[in-house]
């Protein structure tokens, strides 16, 4: 086992030495410098150009959009919550009368209460002795 470990370690050391012997080509640093300079300058220009284009586009589009907005049919657009909250039910134009006005209202006089005419025999119906015969007749219309 020890021999195996030694062999593996020796092998790894040898490989490590070979690996460490790999060097970047001499031109690489110059190439990187050139690439960084080119990329850096280009990226800045790209940002400025994009920003300017965006500002111009917004400045050109915004008035057009604002002009077109009324042309849109009212049914298509939904009212916002703030608009809905601002809405109030229409109040009646008639002014509510004050309490003093209510008290001063004069009501028309009521007609006199109707009085029953006194019966020739008795004023009380239950004491009347005269009963119509028609009430005593048997009614059989319910059995027809």
């Amino acid at each position, binding site marked *: 086992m020890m021999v195996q470990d030694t062999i*593996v370690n020796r092998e790894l050391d040898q*490989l*490590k030495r070979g*690996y*460490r012997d790999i*060097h970047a080509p001499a031109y690489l640093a110059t190439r*990187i*410098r050139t690439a*960084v300079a080119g*990329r850096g300058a280009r990226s800045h220009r790209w940002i400025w150009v994009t920003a300017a284009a965006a500002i111009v586009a917004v400045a050109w589009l915004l008035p057009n959009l604002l002009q077109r907005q009324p042309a849109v049919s009212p049914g298509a657009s939904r009212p916002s919550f703030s608009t809905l909250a601002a809405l109030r039910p229409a109040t009646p134009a008639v002014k509510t009368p004050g309490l003093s006005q209510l008290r001063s209202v004069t009501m028309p006089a009521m007609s006199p209460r109707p009085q029953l005419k006194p019966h020739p025999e008795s004023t009380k119906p239950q004491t009347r002795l005269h009963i119509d015969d028609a009430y005593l007749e048997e009614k059989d219309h319910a059995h027809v």
Partner: protein
Amino acid sequence: MNWDDKSDADLVRLFKSGEPAAFDAIVLRFQDRVFRLACVWLYDEQSAADVAQEVFVRGYSGLRLFRFRSAPFTWLYRTTKNVCREFNRVRRTEPLDHEPVDTSATPERHVANYQGARRVRELVATLPKRQQEVVMLRIFEDFSVRETAQAMGCREGTVKALLHKAVKQLKLNNDGAGYDRE
């Protein structure tokens, strides 16, 4: 200014404070390490140089926002890994005939780089992905356990366990290869 005396963090701090020469020092200090990692992951030197360039270009904007939660090279390592992954993904869709050939490096240097990278690649290729990463960082890049954990985004205990398994696997591979060196 003597850049060699400065620590990695100091270089980044100077770069952040608006010292453009500090970035050149960062490139010179880390370019070999980034290039090596890319060589192992990408199979050819030209692609490794392209990746190293892209890593430092990203580093130019990324290190300005560096918050020193880890070592600067940990950040560069992660970027290298991401760029290599993107590069491999793009390359998978391209035909191999279109790969550029590097003619600027000397043939000897090219062969040495190629051999070194190939042997490391062959060694780690037998391991699972996470173990490959641990071996690359801990053994070949001499990262501490803590730095390795930060670079891999895991706990230190996980790094130790992965390294243990990786070394065990390498020993088994060595056995299977039938080495007879006594």
